[in-house]
């Protein structure tokens, strides 16, 4: 399968005088994979994509496509297709002209181009738009044409640079589904850049999360979600994000380790005691996902915590409870749609200590819970 892997080894991009846009990243996108590059704006994800495309020169490091080092290969010879954020359609050409541009440039015959244009347009449902100019199209239609211009080429991999960010919410979710279907049908590698964590979670086979030009974590969406490598990842994925609280590890009266945050105190599972022993009497960051805070004790291992209701945010299928921890910060909890409580009321909620994450406050990296979960797959 390694035939057309895209491999980045210690790749950096430095803009003069010395702005490090991408800083020594290592990443392998497997042949046929749908890889998401996720991160806030300015994290270097687009620059990384543009280096793969060949539109930006690699300052240092090696870029491979399969076995070939392609640092110095001209973009047109890399056999990659890119879809730009603002589509980059040629405004003076019709849809058919835009789709067939590349083939015309490469000197294909008129009949061949026309057949291929029709085939691609039919696949994307834009066959009836072939005679129109880009300015006569809606955002979603332009997006399809841009996609079509990439699809018509049959490249080794498709590089998508925030292609959905200019669409409205409804269209975005439709196009998301279509891209996933398209990926399944074509079986080609897709590298998709986005700052939208929902897009990343729903589309990606693997997500590569970037920050300040570096890769923070790579993994399958749920894996990254359940085991965030740092507070950045924990806070970036999902909305509302993971609750992050300043806390300490202490030994309780029964000798078990506890994580204490104000008047919240959770005894840690005895299985984790070994991993956390080194952190005894030290500061940590306690991370709890909003959905891991429950109204009722559903497991015997769950421990109660008293909170005061600050606000309720009704989202329809669920309600986000914003609650104050006595002597500590506020937390968000995901409640059922039927949840109701007056503001100011003191409630008892339940947390399973097995669901919590602890982070090192100085490095912000996750503190491994057990020896076997240390294995990261930042490969």
């Amino acid at each position: 399968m390694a035939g057309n892997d895209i491999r980045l080894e210690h790749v950096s991009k430095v803009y003069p005088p010395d702005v490090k846009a991408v800083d020594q990243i290592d990443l392998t996108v497997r042949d046929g994979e749908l890889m998401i590059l996720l991160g806030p704006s300015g994290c270097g994800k687009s620059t990384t994509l543009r280096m793969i495309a060949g539109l930006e020169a690699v300052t240092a490091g090696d870029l491979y496509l399969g076995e070939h080092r392609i640092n110095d290969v001209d973009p047109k010879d890399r056999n990659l297709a890119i879809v730009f954020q603002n589509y980059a359609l040629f405004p003076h050409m019709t849809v058919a002209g835009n789709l067939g541009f590349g083939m015309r440039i490469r000197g294909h015959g008129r009949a061949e181009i026309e057949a291929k244009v029709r085939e691609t347009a039919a696949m994307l449902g834009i066959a009836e738009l072939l005679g129109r100019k880009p300015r006569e199209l809606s955002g979603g239609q332009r997006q399809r044409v841009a996609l079509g211009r990439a699809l018509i080429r049959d490249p080794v991999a498709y590089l998508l640079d925030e292609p959905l960010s200019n669409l409205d919410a409804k269209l975005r979710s439709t196009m998301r589904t279509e891209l996933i279907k398209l990926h399944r049908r074509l079986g080609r590698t897709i590298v998709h850049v986005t700052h939208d964590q929902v897009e990343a979670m729903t589309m990606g086979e693997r997500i590569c999360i970037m920050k300040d030009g570096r890769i923070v974590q790579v993994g399958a969406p749920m894996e990254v979600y359940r085991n965030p490598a740092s507070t950045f990842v924990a806070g970036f994925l999902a909305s509302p994000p993971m609750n992050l609280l300043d806390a300490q590890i202490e030994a309780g009266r029964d000798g078990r380790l506890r994580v204490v945050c104000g008047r919240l105190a959770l005894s840690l599972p005895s299985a984790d005691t070994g991993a956390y022993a080194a952190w005894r009497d030290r500061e940590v960051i306690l991370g709890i996902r909003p959905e891991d805070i429950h109204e009722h004790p559903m497991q015997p291992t769950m421990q109660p915590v008293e909170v005061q209701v600050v606000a309720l945010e009704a989202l329809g299928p669920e309600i986000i409870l914003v609650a104050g921890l006595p002597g500590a910060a506020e937390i968000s909890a995901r409640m059922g749609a039927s949840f109701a409580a007056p503001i100011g009321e003191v409630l008892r909620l339940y947390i399973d200590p097995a669901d919590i994450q602890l982070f090192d406050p100085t490095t912000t990296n996750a503190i491994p819970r057990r020896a076997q979960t240390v294995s990261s797959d930042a490969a």
Partner: protein
Amino acid sequence: MSAALATPAIEQQDRRFGYLMAAPSLLALFLVILFPILFTLYTSAFDYTLIQPTHDVFVGLDHYTNALDNAEFGQALWVTLWFVGAVVILEFVIGFTVALMLNTVERGKNVYYLILLFPLLMNPVVVGLIWRMFLHPVLGIVNYLLSLVGIGAVNWLGDPQNAFWTLVMVDIWHQVSFMVVLLLAGLSALPREPYEAARMEGASTLQTFLHVTLPLMRPVIMVTLLIRLIFAVRTYDLIYIMTRGGPGQATDLVSYFIYRQAFVGLNIGEAAALSIILLLIVLALTVYLYRYMRSLA
């Protein structure tokens, strides 16, 4: 008074105030632009000369029919057509080439701009005088420099064959930066993505120029050409200073021909008719330009 009636009253007041504020400039415009045009139009229908400056003898459209029959005027129109065609095309080709080159320049762009804008900032009379000195057959620096490389003296402005192209050359020197500046502004405003898309498709430099740059630049090119065209049709100062339309009629542009009718021939009535013809030509071009710019919006 009901609220429904109150608004128009205020609007009317606003409108009256608006007219009041605009009145001085409207009056000035009428006096310096509309009145001379109307007076010219009126005069063109009379036998009005500087010997007998009265509107006594009405001749109707005679001046117009005479003008169209006049071989000298036909020649002036012909020379003007050639001149306009030559300067617009040459200035466009040179200007676009320079603009394309400057568009890739990263450092010192402002210095280039400054140098380029220099001739454009000069008065045409000054430009004419400078070049007349440069091109003087005996005392001029151009012929001196040519003599250094063994080329004999050229009669730049005295020879009918040379005079026309000499004028074209001086006009290019003077006005080409207009093209450069406008086209460069257009080029630097072009979106980057279509170029990257073309690059990914493997388009060569020439293909990118033909399929991306030219079509994207079309509106800017059209407007630049038309503006330059309109100004070129009216060229006068340079002719007056450098050749006075000569030798013979070699550089006799319409605007200079009109001047001759009026102040050498003293025939104001006929000159007025010719001016109206020139005005109509320029007006037609302007309307076309205006329509075109509207269609872009």
